[in-house]
């Protein structure tokens, strides 16, 4: 019998263990030509802001060894158009949807949450606190336990919905467990980790940073060991906390590493760019990895690497 791959993130039941990572699948529609999007664990949408946003200047990407840098700068249509077009499509197509939100300040996060709490088809909220706080000299919310908690408290106070709220954590911190503790106290139902690492590539012909935004976020298999470590640390410190894991997952074997470290489900990000069918393929492979090791379900493996 093939293993039971269903899982959950807090109150949200997932029919499959692989989700798309925010910013790596737009709002799901473009992936429909490579698979049935409604069979994914969920689509996590590109972080949406209140206002339309042009993003940063190009070049916005650089390939790096086993990874890439991006500096998209949260380009998006703003929450209104998102609801009308993107969320409507997801809802019509019965896609489990986790909406990722980003704000320039704490209030904007609150406004976004207030709007989304009322809308049908939002199965979960991922709060991308790994974006710069314009009120605090551009420091990233997730890099400070106080500002991270402020965002979550504000979101929580207006989130009149049963759908879980996840905080998306940045690995660019001295102590990720401290940040996890602070968002848990502020009331999250789970955490998503990890966002990208801050990186840079220099264009040595132009003698300037390669990306239009100078720095960018490093993602892909290159960062996988950092993601596994972060998840392992947070699960060790807060065992009951649901974790949506991500960071360089390419195969079912990689996904199993994340589950064993403590993730309840995984998001596939950068690898989708090279292999758009990866979210489906990895779910299948994960099933095979579990089966070949004699496990009957994914749930029995969550955090198992902590027992040995």
């Amino acid at each position: 019998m093939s293993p039971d791959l269903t899982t959950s993130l807090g109150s949200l039941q997932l029919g499959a263990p692989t989700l798309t990572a925010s910013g790596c699948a737009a709002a799901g529609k473009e992936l429909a030509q490579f698979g049935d999007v409604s069979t994914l664990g969920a689509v996590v949408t590109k972080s949406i802001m209140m206002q339309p946003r042009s993003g940063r200047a190009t070049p916005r990407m650089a390939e790096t060894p086993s990874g890439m840098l991006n500096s998209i700068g949260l380009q998006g249509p703003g929450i209104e158009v998102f609801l009308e077009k993107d969320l409507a499509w997801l809802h019509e197509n019965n896609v489990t949807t986790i909406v990722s939100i980003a704000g320039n300040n704490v209030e904007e996060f609150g406004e976004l949450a207030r709007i989304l709490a009322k809308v049908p088809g939002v199965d979960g909220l991922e709060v991308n606190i790994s974006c710069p706080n314009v009120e605090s000299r551009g420091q990233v919310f997730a890099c400070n336990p106080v500002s991270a908690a402020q965002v979550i408290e504000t979101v929580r106070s207006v989130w009149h919905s049963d759908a879980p709220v996840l905080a998306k954590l940045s690995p660019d911190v001295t102590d990720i467990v401290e940040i996890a503790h602070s968002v848990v106290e502020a009331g999250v139902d789970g955490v998503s980790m990890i966002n990208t690492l801050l990186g840079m590539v220099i264009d040595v012909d132009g003698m300037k940073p390669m990306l239009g935004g100078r720095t960018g976020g490093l993602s892909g298999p290159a960062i996988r060991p950092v993601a596994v470590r972060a998840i392992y640390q947070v699960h060790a410190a807060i065992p009951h906390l649901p974790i949506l894991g991500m960071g360089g997952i390419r195969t079912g074997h990689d996904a199993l590493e994340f589950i064993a470290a403590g993730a309840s489900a995984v998001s596939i990000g950068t690898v989708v760019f090279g292999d758009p069918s990866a979210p489906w393929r990895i779910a299948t492979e994960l099933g095979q990895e579990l089966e070949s090791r004699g496990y009957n379900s994914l749930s029995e493996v969550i955090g198992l690497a902590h027992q040995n």
Partner: protein
Amino acid sequence: MSTAKQMKCTIRSLEPVGEYLHLILDAPEMPEVQPGHFAAVAVGGVGGGMLLRRAFSIHKSEPGETLELIFAAHGQGTQWLATQSAGDVIDVIAPLGKPFVLPRQPVACVLVAGGYGAAPMELLAQQLRARGCRVDVVLGAATQEKLFGVLSLKGVSDSLTVTTDDGTSGVRGRVTDVLAELMTRNESKAVYACGPMAMLQAVAAVAQENGAFSQCAVEESMACGIGVCMTCVLPVIGDDGVTRMVRSCVEGPVFRGDRVRWNDVDTIPQDTFGAPSPGGH
């Protein structure tokens, strides 16, 4: 949006043509192709250090049979591709992007290409001629070895002009040095261009000055090629007159030449939809 296929393709042949390589793939699952469509090829092998696909204009294709690409061995990924050989299997997604829009009327057209930008032009010329259009071709390159398609395009066009920067073949100079006169002579109504951005900008300008419609296939750095990553954007003016940062992989790579804000590529013009207000967001 075209519906693309992710396919395992066996290499039928890989041969040098001038400074480029001509790749012919067995592609039994290949859908119909329009000129201007592109293909995205995975490079480096599984477990290699390169995650991102490389984009190439589709040179030719028999649906259900073959797919042909022309490429320059340039950086790490294309150099890897150049070391593959017949029998090796590569992973390809195609067809991608919006193709060239063909005229409804049998008007005179000019096809302008720089270097490997000539790859999609034979297919385009054939389709235009099938609609009764006059087809004039201008091929440019830095030097003779970087010209592609001179012979084959001669066979499917009404005239073919070659320019090289160093004069090693044809007229010494740029494609735009010969374009205006050619357009006047033939009363060309549409210009199709593929090549480096600077060339596209110049060609679009000449087209506009001569009252012609232009279609330019741009080349922006692409991470995904399928519309999900937002890396491949450039400022394009919409039907409503508003400039947006638009994905060249799904809303392009072919754009109307008068709609692309060529001077502002690699910037966010201040009047772009959603642009940062002065002083930041």
